[in-house]
């Protein structure tokens, strides 16, 4: 590696050669489209009326911020987030702690492998599976609850039940991810400290709270940021399962943006919605980092 002989530092040209391709790629596939979206959001830009494209300043943003449908969709998305994320964390942590126990190596390997399956399944396929499995008449979910004496539930056709179904499905698909990340976090706890703590107390919760949890903070922060961003942009699974219905009951913010941008073809308005969503995501990520890392 070319090094400046006098100072021992790496030359600027070397740094540029290594970083350059990544930065250019990021600019082309990340920043470029983002800037284009910002440009679009400041224009009346409808794909079916390209002859009428014109600069309208912040009008699209004003329309979004005063549209009750946008806020309802955003509220629905946050409701999904505040229900599913704590459940994913709780179950994921439980699974991670179980897998962190010593012994039964083969079973643990098998469990780790099976945890990858829901995550590896394409979102859209998960949604289609949900559509079939939650079918009122022929779905396996109603068959199962029928075995324990419950009447069939109208999952997809009832607004509340449809929301419960997509929440359940999101939890099913992403709890394994949380479990695996937290399991990785648990492996960073020095074994001698853990063993010493277990000699001091028989209470697992005390060990978790004072020994394991501090080491889990980085993993938890990563999970919170990733899952929050994922939930805010959750689209495929819900689109294929309920298409946002019945009514608007499962129309999350990403489905709304897709509807406006690609079914009404109003790219300007959809871009403004997407930019606002991006700002919200960045603010939340910053909050997580500041609040959680403060404790470390």
């Amino acid at each position, binding site marked *: 590696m070319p090094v400046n002989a006098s100072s021992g530092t790496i030359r600027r040209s070397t740094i540029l050669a290594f970083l350059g391709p990544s930065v250019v790629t990021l600019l082309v596939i990340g920043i470029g489209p983002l800037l284009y979206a910002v440009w679009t959001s400041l224009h009346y830009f409808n794909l079916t*009326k*390209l002859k009428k494209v014109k600069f309208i300043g912040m009008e699209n943003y004003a329309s979004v911020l005063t549209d009750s*449908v946008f806020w309802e969709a955003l509220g629905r998305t946050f409701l999904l987030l505040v229900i599913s994320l704590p459940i994913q964390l709780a179950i994921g942590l439980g699974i991670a702690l179980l897998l962190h126990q010593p012994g039964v190596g083969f079973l643990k390997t098998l469990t780790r492998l099976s945890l990858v399956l829901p995550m590896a399944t394409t979102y859209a396929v998960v949604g289609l599976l949900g559509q079939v499995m939650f079918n009122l008449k022929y779905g396996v979910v109603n068959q199962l609850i029928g075995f324990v004496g419950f009447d069939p539930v109208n999952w997809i*056709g009832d*607004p509340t039940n449809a929301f419960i179904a997509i929440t359940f499905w999101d939890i099913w698909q992403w709890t394994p991810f949380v479990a695996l990340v937290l399991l990785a976090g648990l492996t960073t706890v020095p074994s001698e400290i853990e063993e010493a703590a277990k000699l001091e107390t028989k209470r697992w919760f005390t060990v978790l709270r004072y020994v394991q949890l501090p080491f889990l903070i980085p993993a938890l922060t990563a999970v919170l940021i990733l899952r929050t961003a994922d939930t805010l942009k959750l689209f495929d699974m819900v689109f294929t399962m309920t298409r946002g219905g*019945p*009514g608007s009951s499962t129309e999350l913010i990403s489905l709304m943006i897709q*509807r406006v941008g690609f079914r009404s073809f*109003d790219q300007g308005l959809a871009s403004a919605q997407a930019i606002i969503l991006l700002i919200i995501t960045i603010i939340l990520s910053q909050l997580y980092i500041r609040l959680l890392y403060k404790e470390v």
Partner: protein
Amino acid sequence: MKLNPTLRSLLVAGTCWLGVIGTAGAWTLEEAAKPYAGTTVDVVFLLRPGYEAAEAMLPEFEEKTGIKINIIKHPYENALGEQVRDFVANGDLDIALIDLVWIGNFAENDWLLPISEFTSNPELADPDLDIDDFFPLVLNAFGGWNGEVYGLPFDNYSGLLFYNECMLKDAGFDGPPGTWSELKDTYGPALTKDGKYAFALQSKRNETQSADSFARVLWPFGGSFLDDDFKSNLMSAESQAGLKFRQDLMQYMPEGIVAYDHAEAVNALAQGDVAMLTEWSAFYSTLKSPDTSKVADCLKIAPEPSGPAGRKPALGGFSLAVAAQADEKERAASWLFIQWVTSKANALEYLERGGVPARQSVYEQDGVAEKYDFVPALVESWQDGVPEFRPRFAEWPEITEIVQEWGSKIMLGEVSTEEGAEELGKRMEAVLEEAGYYSGEKPLAQ
């Protein structure tokens, strides 16, 4: 909107003239296609029986012409978006598949070529094209915009009442209901029992909600989306009567009907779970085949019930038009394909394979009406339909989204019919104002 009479006369005269020339010069598809052999034509097809029928006929066309037809299959819900993106990006599509409600949009964006470009070319125009053989209502609604014909009707539908005769007989009925009120008040209570339902009105929140559910109850009750000044007509007594009727009728439909698309509704009838269904004629082959229907032997078909304003059945389907973005060879090859697949000569085979042609002559042939139960009802429906059943202007893609959202909210009881119609009307008028209908920038054409 009616076809310009002058244009129609020209088209007819042109076709007749070509007929004379054709007799002398013996126009053949093979000869016409010679310069275009090896050309590939890209077209979007849907996942429906009529498209499978056309696909099965394709080898004959490709063998005769050497033209390759490249079919890109999409479910209905994706077809508009895929085509718009392709046309905006000046992509590969050579033929536009046009739903009734897309024609204004496509034509106003200059994405289509009028058929006169081809009918006026004796080398490309089949002397047997016989444009007047298409049902005028269907040609008008699906192929025409602003006095110009762009597309030839392809796999067209009318709303029909499919019913399970056995279930009706068991409940003591000799035949289907003639009116919507009769369906609700007499047939509804008698047929809704033991986990079975009298009726299904597919109402999923997509175009199904707008076309098959919302519009279906507006027109027979005398309502409409817009009045003569293009203001919302949804608060009129007639429109409200239709919407309230739908709410009342829901008690005789399966739970979760707001999540039923065509597939679920057709399946409900096919499995014997509902006794009656208003559905497109295109689903006849699915419901009539013992492979896909448990009630094939009991299946009967009638025209849609009447309302106080008459029958006003739903009108659906497509036309095929040559896309303006195609190059010269692709344009000619595309036209030859469109002309062939919608031709009078191929109509019977297309029908037999599961498609629904819009050629009058095929339904006049001996035995067709007897063999295909849906024919009499279909022919009757196509005599007196409403071309603007759903407005065909360029703004429909925006308006249908509003109808889908608020129509679903009304059905779910989240808002009353009045609240829903008021909000829907307000949003619909905002779109029309932005488009320039109220300022006189655009003519009030739908």
